[in-house]
């Protein structure tokens, strides 16, 4: 099939130019001083030193991580029972419930976030609570759908078997349903945590600009200050932390599976 394999080559070039090179550009900018040109690079680690020497930046990073973790936990706590309820519905109602949860996701995220602004202003909610509501609102559907998918894949015979073998409802849930639904929870965590850490428009729209997260810092350094080198360094630090947390999550998932 020599004739077909060449068809993939143009994309390999495109992919290198549009995906790989931009990633390398961030690393390059993060490790060089401001005002360098393509011909004269001056390598430095000062951008990273600056991030950790100032107390503001680590505080913002810590706040973003804390916020993303709390958002993820709230989404699991609210989303799991909801997915469980859905998985127990009649097949027709299940399809309807999935449609009802998917429908708001089709509406532009900015519009959905803006939709809360009026209500939250009216309720005079504080900026921190507003940001949490905005985050949970935007990301909860992903969590529900992931958990629902893994719950609905569970063979109902397993539940019946557990009951026949003398397990009560609680034991069946803890020993059968919950472990089998963990892959859904894990992919839900990925889909919530990742965008929550880096989100910058939710804090901006609902936090009234007073609630700064790491995404806002990156935005400011690129759009307002124009210090792209430092902005790149912040993004790189964030990307590395996210990669590490994803790696840890996957390891935990594997460890949990090996336990069974």
């Amino acid at each position: 099939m020599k004739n077909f394999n060449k068809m993939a080559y143009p994309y390999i070039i495109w992919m290198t130019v549009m995906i790989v090179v931009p990633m390398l550009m961030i690393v390059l900018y993060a490790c060089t001083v401001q005002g360098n040109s393509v011909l004269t690079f001056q390598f430095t680690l000062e951008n990273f030193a600056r991030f950790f020497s100032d107390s503001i930046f680590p505080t913002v990073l810590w706040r973003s991580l804390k916020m993303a973790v709390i958002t993820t936990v709230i989404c699991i706590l609210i989303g799991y029972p909801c997915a469980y309820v859905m998985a127990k519905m009649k097949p027709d109602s299940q399809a309807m419930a999935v449609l009802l949860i998917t429908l708001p996701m089709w509406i532009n995220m900015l519009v959905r976030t803006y939709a809360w602004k009026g209500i939250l202003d009216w309720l005079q909610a504080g900026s921190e609570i507003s940001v949490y509501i905005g985050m949970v609102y935007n990301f909860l559907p992903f969590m529900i759908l992931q958990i629902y998918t893994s719950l609905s894949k569970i063979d109902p015979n397993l539940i019946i078997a557990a009951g026949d073998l003398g397990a009560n409802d609680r034991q069946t849930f803890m020993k059968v349903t919950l472990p089998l639904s963990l892959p859904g929870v894990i992919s839900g965590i990925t889909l919530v945590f990742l965008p929550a850490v880096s989100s910058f428009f939710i804090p901006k729209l609902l936090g009234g600009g007073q609630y700064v997260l790491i995404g806002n810092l990156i935005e400011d350094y690129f759009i307002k200050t124009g210090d792209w080198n430092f902005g790149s360094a912040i993004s790189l630090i964030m990307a590395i932390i996210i990669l590490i947390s994803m790696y840890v999550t996957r390891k935990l998932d594997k460890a949990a599976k090996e336990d069974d």
Partner: protein
Amino acid sequence: MKQKRGILSKIYFALIMVFFYVPIVYVVFFSFNSSKSLSKFTGFSLKWYQAMFANRSIMEAIWYTVLCAVIATIVSTIVGTITAIGLSKNRKVIRELVTQVNNLPMLNPEIVTAIGLMLFFTSLRIQTGFTTMVLAHIAFCIPYVMLSVTPRLRQLDPNLSDAALDLGCTPWQAMTKVIIPQIKGSIVAGALVAFSMSFDDFVISMFTTGPGVSNISIYVYSNVKRVNPTINALSAIIVYVITIVLIIVNVVPMLRERKQKKEVLDA
């Protein structure tokens, strides 16, 4: 006991639905308000819709959003499909490599992908604007199209395209007459995902566009620092369009199925 639990789960699900739909209803409701307030309804009026249609920047933003999504969908669907077909006939190493690189933007936060592209365009001294935004959209849409088409390609019988070539088809004919008709469904699904990703995108557009070019998301982002009921009208219109489209998409197949069942029964 069982019944009580059933009622409790219904109430719980209903509460979640209230959480999901209250803001949407709220936005639509206040888009008909006669005053600027977003908390007191002073009377019915369509003036915010009029203001919206008279607002040139909003109309331009809608136009750019649609145009960008259409171009990005067409290009990424064609390129993604051709690449996926090409890859399916390549060695495993190359397939794995492309998959891994395609995964990069999905594993990274969007803002990282966005600033990467921004740095890339500006270092090449390309003036950012509509073209760079479309290029960026094509770049992030192609992996989604491939994600949709590749699994379907794996299920195909390779003998069919081989037979077409043996019987004198050119590779182009083998592709358009044999392979593509078999994977049509997954191509359409990929195109739909690409369109909605592009239509809703904010972060990547924001960093790759230039002065004077905004899509709907960017417009909303830069105009909501103060109360702005024209944004409610814009949001409401998006809600109407999406509801109508989703109803058509979900109800039409249901009606068709019912009709088929009826025909079977009649026969």
